[in-house]
């Protein structure tokens, strides 16, 4: 019962946030709706018994990625020219009716393909008793340094590379 209410709440947040992210014309609002959607995803993780992942989702997205996005919007907003270098009218940056039509059509095709793939799963959806929720922190910790230790190390190198790369790229160039 409680789980169901939680699930419906989280699903509504996720899908509503995602829909509004796609719908709104204001980039700042889109970012806030994305935050709502990501919180909903954290709620879905919680209903799936993935407590550590839910907290990680909150820490990384709410604390890091969304604020970073907001910062980037603030640093790049302002100048808007509506013609490109050939003097032709550009598509507005948040899309217009034409782009949405194209996106909608291609999404219908994609949806049919994915549904074709998912259909056998929907048909054979038998499940027994689900295990009770347990703490996953210790098990994830053990898995990270035993089974997945190579991926763990590679991801740490990736993060270091991203850190250095982001600093180097966004640094203003000398003599310019």
């Amino acid at each position, binding site marked *: 019962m409680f789980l169901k209410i939680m699930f419906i709440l989280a699903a509504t947040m996720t899908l509503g946030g995602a829909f509004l992210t796609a719908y709104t014309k204001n980039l700042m609002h889109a970012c806030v709706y994305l935050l709502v959607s990501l919180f909903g995803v954290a709620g879905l993780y919680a209903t799936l018994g993935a407590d550590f992942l839910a907290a990680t989702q909150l820490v990384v997205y709410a604390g890091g990625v969304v*604020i970073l996005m907001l910062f980037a919007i603030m640093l790049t907003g302002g100048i808007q020219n509506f013609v490109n270098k050939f003097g032709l009218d550009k598509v507005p940056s948040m899309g217009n009716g034409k782009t949405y039509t194209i996106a909608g059509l291609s999404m219908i095709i994609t949806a049919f393909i994915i549904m074709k793939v998912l259909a056998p799963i929907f048909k054979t959806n038998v499940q027994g008793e689900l295990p009770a929720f347990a703490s996953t922190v210790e098990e994830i910790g053990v898995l990270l340094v035993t089974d997945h230790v190579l991926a763990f190390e590679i991801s740490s190198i990736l993060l270091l590379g991203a850190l250095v790369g982001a600093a180097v790229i966004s640094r203003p160039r000398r003599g310019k």
Partner: protein
Amino acid sequence: MNETVVSYLSQAPGYALLVEKLSEFFGFDAEGFVTFLIFALVCFVVVNVMSAIGGLGTYAERKISADLQMRQGPNRVGPFGILQFLADGVKMLGKEDILPAQADRFLFLIAPLMCMVGVFASLAVVPFSSGLTLTNLNIGVFYLIGVSSLVGVGIFLGGYAANSKWSMLGGMRGASQIISYEVPVTLSILAIVLMTGSLSFNVITDAQGGLPHQWYIFHNPFTFIAFFVLFIGALAETNRAPFDLPEAESELVSGYHTEFSGMRFAFFALAEYVEVFVVCGVVAALFLGGYKVPFDLGNGELIAKTFPAIHPMLAKQIGNVLQLKAFILKTLALYYVVIWIRWTLPRLRVDSLMVLCWKYLTPIALFNLVGCAVWLWAFEGKSMWAMIFKSGVAAAGGHH
């Protein structure tokens, strides 16, 4: 199943009776209903008490600042002016709720609420006592870091939405400061998590003792430094002086909440004061023994043994009240230090703020983390007092 305030209260003899009576009354198993009822009641109490503490925080701030500057401070409303915050609240409610014409309406409305939600959601895991923890999550520390980062988003959006230059600068400063200082804060919290091997606040608190030499702050030299790193970082994360750049009165009129008036401004102020309380509570729980009372008076076993006449549950309740007092005492002592620092130190510049974070605190916190790991490996997690005591005994034995 995590330990919650309900599972603590369910040990009381009245609980089973209540469930039984209600089940008879409603005709279905009322266990879930009673759980919900207790949670709702305790949440209501905690939120209201915290709001009162946040309000009293403004009073304490004014009174202590007056004391430090040899003034009287508020003294008209109630005895010693203690009802000043209620008067302020009524004044705030009566003010007009101004929405600037150029403002981004939607963001302007939700920004103060985001701050409030972030702070009050983090109250769910603050360990007030071993019984009165709303829920003892096994990822409590992590959850708190995640939820309280909503405050940064709220401040940033508040600064953006008002569409004024002061607000914009304040919001930008606030967000950059909060995400920068999250790094040393998290690293120094990780040092304690490393020592304990758990992310749950209650487990961390239970690993410490009631007396100062059993606290984690005096466990080894690295945790001693980590405490100060965490405290400085917490000051910066809650935008308190000397790091109150987002609301620097002398440069940006009042920073990100320049354009807010009435209850919206009050939400920001309340969120800030409650967040200071939460942060002080977290520092107390992680480093100063939290709710631990000396000589294990807190778990009620000693009381039950000394006075066999009273019910063991009553002894437990007395122990819990003692624990609550210990926690509040430690937290308020830190709260006093925060206010004291605010009225003593001048404000930093923006660049020196970032230099302090990235060039000093973060390397120190990293060094501490490695140091704690080495200490754990080398001395098997013994505290330095235990080792001094042991070597002292060995030296005394050697003289014979």
